[in-house]
């Protein structure tokens, strides 16, 4: 499909020269009387990252800005705004009679807006459910101990695909919930293959990522501050709003990052629980690459998504400059 797919020989030469230089540098460094510098230990990693992280990113950028023949073009980005772009161009060339047929394709923009909306909903729900959870978990008066924390971690360590598939058995037409409804004499409900099911799957998968950063921020908090606030006459509500809430902001920011980012790009949850009725941005990218084999448009979409994520990350970093909230990996 793609004429310009393979590495030109000069790139291979460049890699060869780099590799030889790298080995030579190593030998020379070892030969020196004072031994090798410690920073030299990082060089295999540097080479690895250049090959497997930076180079692939450069390739995505290359495909995003070229057409299938390898010539520079911005059409892939115009295609993002108007997915009928190539067809429309033909209509326009055919003359004014065909101008009626020109219609902007909104698939890409529509999917992006839908993904952002779903991710936002998911983040808000996770925050609404997760904040109280983290707050109660960190509540020392409850004397819950670390066992409870472990209980919240365990589901996260199960294959997330399996967890999503497990919801399928609960939600499907002949599934557990509907069987239960029938046993109670209630009408069965269509629970799968709609936005609600996708949202449920997302909240289920990402909720722990909201709970743990907030929990970490809350446990780090100095308890004396709360006592001081109460000694100074603040009631419990005031103590929460003026002391606890501001101190937990880094955790909340981190939680929002860790829920929102993967939510926007998820593509297996809508596939499994949405049954193809819903499409998210991750689906769209996968579709362009694997179903249509259109690498140029797919790369442009990936690039747009990466830029969006870097922008939102830098906004969130501004709210938490020290990155204190990064409590969990």
């Amino acid at each position, binding site marked *: 499909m793609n004429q310009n797919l393979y590495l030109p020989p000069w790139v291979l030469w460049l890699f060869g020269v780099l590799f030889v230089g790298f080995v030579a540098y190593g030998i020379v460094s070892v030969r020196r009387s004072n031994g090798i*510098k410690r920073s030299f230990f*990082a060089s295999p990693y540097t080479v690895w990252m250049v090959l497997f992280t930076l180079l692939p990113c450069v390739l995505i950028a290359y495909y995003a800005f070229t057409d299938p023949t390898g010539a520079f073009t911005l059409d892939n980005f115009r295609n993002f705004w108007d997915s009928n772009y190539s067809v429309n161009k033909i209509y326009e060339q055919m003359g004014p009679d065909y101008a009626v047929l020109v219609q902007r394709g909104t698939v890409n923009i529509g999917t992006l807006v839908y993904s952002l909306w779903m991710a936002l909903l998911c983040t808000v729900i996770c925050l609404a459910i997760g904040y109280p*959870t983290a707050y109660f*978990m960190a509540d020392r008066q409850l004397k819950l101990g670390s066992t409870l924390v472990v209980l919240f971690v365990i589901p996260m360590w199960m294959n997330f695909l399996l967890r999503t598939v497990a919801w399928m058995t609960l939600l499907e037409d002949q599934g*557990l919930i509907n069987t239960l409804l029938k046993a109670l004499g209630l009408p069965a409900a269509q629970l799968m293959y709609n936005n609600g099911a996708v949202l449920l799957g997302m909240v289920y998968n990402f909720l722990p990522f909201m709970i743990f950063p907030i929990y970490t921020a809350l446990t780090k908090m100095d308890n004396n501050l709360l006592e001081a606030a109460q000694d100074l006459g603040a009631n419990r509500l005031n103590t929460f709003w003026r002391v606890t809430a501001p101190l937990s902001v880094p955790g909340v920011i981190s939680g929002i990052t860790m829920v929102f980012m993967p939510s926007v790009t998820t593509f297996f949850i809508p596939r499994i629980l949405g049954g193809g009725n819903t499409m998210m941005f991750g689906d769209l990218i996968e579709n362009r690459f694997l179903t249509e084999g259109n690498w140029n448009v797919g790369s442009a979409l990936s690039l747009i998504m990466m830029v969006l*994520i870097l922008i939102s990350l830098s906004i969130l970093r501004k709210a938490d400059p020290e990155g204190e909230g990064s409590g969990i990996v």
Partner: protein
Amino acid sequence: MKHIGKKAYLGLILLFLYTPIVVLIMQSFNAGKSRAKWEGFSFRWYTALFQDQAIMKALYVTLTVAVIAAIAATVLGTLAAIGIQAMRKRPQAVMMTMTNLPMTMPDIVTGISLMILFTFTKIERGYMTMLLAHITFNTPYVILSVMPKLKQMNKFTYEAALDLGASPSYALLHVILPEITPGVVTGCLLAFTLSLDDFVISYFTTSPMVQNLSTLIYSKARIGIEPTLNALSALMFLSLLILLLIVNRRAGKTTRL
């Protein structure tokens, strides 16, 4: 009794988190094939599981990739962390940005960019490419778990060892390594579990001929899951639980990640 409401709330959240898992495990013991009806207790699906060639092959791929990728990432990442720690401020900042980049990149972009790389360089996708991809996304996590340990140790012990006549490799093995071992082990276990759990990156970097468990589950989930997969997930859950308990004990002994 005062806190009953709070405890009930936490219980409710745990119920939400555990219901699908419990249902899945229970179904794996169901004698019948129906998902909704209980037809008696049996180990039928567990015996069927070990006779299923596709699942056994996927299990083999998953485990070997996870083990090799974890070890390779640990070696690469530990050396890198030691090197980065010794760098001056500027290059150090560049290296840390490069380490954080793949962690902020969405999985799907990482997967696709690697797929492009492999097609571009005419490397056929399969076991090796999946392994390379796993090492790539694991290494930054190892670095980030080794880094804090390096920051804690005395800066000059390595130089002291060199002054006393140790070769760099000797100093590395006998001076630095013992001090950072907890971080290295945590990083290795983290890399192993991440690799075990990965779906998106594997999906893009392997061919349909070489599947790991995640991609196998994905391809089957669209047709309809078989009870053998329930049995498999129950087993995987149990083994991850054991691994988690080990990690947790380690984390309790040393400092948390």
